[in-house]
């Protein structure tokens, strides 16, 4: 029993130990500037990973989030360039993300094609469309105030952290306290049993993809705000980081498992590893290898825990 609790707390402990070690190893770590930077850097992946958590719990996967992030950021900034007020621009970015999430869900449920294949396809389609729309050129004419989204501070804390916490609370509530969340778990755990229980499986799967798209659109706007450009090439490879965060946090690619808290920890572990390597002067090449090893390690520990039946 005792060891069971210990193992369940392992992700927390890892994060904690990592945090302490970095504080000792580098004096530049425990500074407001550095910690805000970590939060701002991880917020984008984190918000995407929240949506990915829902998708993975529902037994699916979304490989297209990196492309959707770019299109959301691009369309949102283009709207602002054309004179839309900042909130409207952000809304455009979120709506674009939601549209593509919906499209993914629609294709998965109506054509009954494997989500891996569908989103591998939309990964290419959305990226291509984004490049076509922008002609491959970034959007620069953005109102100054927009930078507040990614770089502003509220009550001494980065604004994005508030947004992240709000999104996390929202996704947690949906997953643990609503029918949509419950059905997502059921669909991911055994889609046939969910169908035989009379659950509208297609509707709820689509809804989960749409929410993931929405969050990705928001993440796209934050990324654009931090760069103060609408980059058609933004977000390349982010899907793998988002998936890694979910998996490190205990989500299972077999569906039916995953938590918001786990995902947050997963994303922060990866964020700290990257930040720590930077501070300690470890090359980005080595960083990649370290993060890869951490993913395998985390999943191995998780599998062992499950097999022990605690």
């Amino acid at each position, binding site marked *: 029993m005792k060891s069971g609790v210990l193992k369940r707390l392992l992700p927390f402990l890892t994060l904690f130990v990592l945090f302490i070690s970095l504080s000792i190893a580098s004096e530049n770590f425990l500074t407001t500037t550095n910690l805000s930077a970590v939060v701002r850097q991880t917020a984008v992946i984190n918000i995407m990973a929240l949506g990915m958590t829902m998708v993975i719990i529902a037994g699916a996967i979304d490989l297209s989030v990196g492309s959707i992030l770019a299109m959301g950021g691009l369309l949102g900034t283009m709207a602002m360039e054309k004179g839309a007020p900042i909130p409207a621009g952000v809304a455009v970015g979120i709506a674009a993300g939601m549209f593509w999430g919906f499209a993914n869900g629609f294709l998965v449920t109506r054509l009954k094609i494997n989500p891996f294949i569908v989103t591998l396809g939309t990964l290419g389609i959305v990226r291509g469309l984004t490049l076509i729309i922008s002609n491959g050129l970034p959007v620069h004419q953005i109102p100054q105030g927009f930078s507040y989204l990614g770089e502003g501070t509220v009550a001494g804390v980065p604004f994005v952290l508030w947004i992240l916490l709000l999104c996390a609370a929202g996704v947690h509530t949906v997953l*643990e306290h*609503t029918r949509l969340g419950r059905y997502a778990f059921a669909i991911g*755990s055994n889609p046939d049993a969910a169908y035989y229980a009379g659950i509208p499986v297609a509707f709820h799967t689509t809804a989960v993809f749409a929410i993931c798209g929405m969050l990705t659109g928001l993440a796209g706007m934050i990324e654009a705000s931090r760069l103060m450009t609408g980059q058609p090439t933004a977000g390349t490879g982010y899907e793998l980081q988002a998936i890694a965060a979910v998996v490190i946090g205990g989500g299972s690619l077999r569906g039916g498992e995953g938590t918001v808290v786990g995902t947050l920890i997963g994303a922060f572990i990866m964020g700290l590893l990257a930040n720590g390597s930077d501070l300690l002067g470890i090359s980005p090449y080595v960083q990649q290898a370290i993060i890869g090893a951490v993913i395998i390690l985390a999943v191995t520990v998780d599998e062992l825990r499950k097999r022990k039946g605690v």
Partner: protein
Amino acid sequence: MLLSLEGIQKRFGGVTALRNGNLAVAAGEVHLLMGENGAGKSTLMKIVAGMQAADGGIMRWQGQEVRFLNPSAAAANGIAMVHQESLLAPHLTVAENIFLGREGNSFLVPRRRMMEAAARLIAEHHFPLQADWRVERLSPAGKQLVEICRAIQHGSSLLIFDEPTSSLSEAETQEVFRIVATLKQRNVGVIYITHRLEELRALGDRVTVLRDGETVHTGPLAGLSRQELIRHMVGREVAAIYHREPVAPGAEMLAFDAPGLSFTLRAGEIVGLAGLMGAGRTELCQEIFGVARHYHGALRIAGAPRTIQSPGDAVAAGIALITEDRQRTGLARGLPISHNTTLASLHRVSRGTLLDHPAERRLTQDFIERLRIKAESPRQLAGRLSGGNQQKVVIAKWLARQARIFLFDEPTRGIDVGAKVEVFELMDSLAREGAAILMVSSELPELIQVADRILVMRRGRLNGELPGRTTQEEIMKRATFGESEQAIQ
């Protein structure tokens, strides 16, 4: 002794599955292993078959103390097991599953020879299977037959059958008995787990009874009365014979009409549906429930025509289907018991759009007590329950839904004697409260006890209706032969 187990112990986290498992089998002996759901029967046998490691106790195989670390070690020693929950590879064919892991030593798999050998094995036992069928398409009964073929083809010296007949109908069950008799003649040891008390009385030599993980009785089967056996299993006196007093049927709840297959269900009625494996009973349930259309029948619910195109429609119309295949369509194994129980009735445990977790736990706890589900807490994962307790969770899901029309497809599959009576009592009280029940069962004595009248299906058509108090022979006759053949009989 071929195999002897002494003081075997096994814990899963906080659950003690076995505290003192003792059992001894000689070559050429048919040994029954009995006990309530969750008593530890499957766990004990999985330890013998090398699928789980014991925490304590001694296992002797042909006199030598052994400990099998994996299933292939047990197989190499001549132990084979027919599993309670199918452990087949769904995407492979029947033949490939039968020979999986035993393809021989050559680099290339001898496909042709495997197919032929499998076909011969199937034909020899008259099983309704084809060697090249894909296993995922098979019903639970079909999968069970594949498991049996797989276990017997190897020439093992000990065969363990874990509830092999729980989803089989009469003809296949008789064939399983024949297989056991042949094995006995060949001096093979057989351990046979079942909840059907009368099963194998003729064949069984000795019986071991487990209760709460402990061997409480072991001895010869001859002279042991049904009552004594039940007392050993349950630890107290229970009335294991159930008799239902029919109530006067009320208004028509459901009417189904297809060529050669028309019937009605009325409020307060329990209607039995009998037939051989492949007679089309499950297909009928699936059609009414909106899963698939086999018969293209017309449906009336409470007197009004209604089309049902999905389980969602069916549930909205007040219909519940307890499917025969709990692993595939009944249970979300990775989710807690509570999630499974309320899956079809979340509206009952919601306040507005939010779920009311305490209410959900209370509802689940209520069913855990009513159905005597052996579980630690409502939070326990459903897949960690014993087979019979999993079935009870599936039933709880539909009781929680408070449906009006119940289609029970093999509802007592794998459920122990005591719980069976409880399920019957539940069905009876549902009927008394005005529900209509269609009960598919391959266990004929059970149908005769519970049903007010019995429909018999044969090859996708109704082949007669019998009163509740009929005999097994009457049912079998209608299930097996057409009208003209019956006359000759």
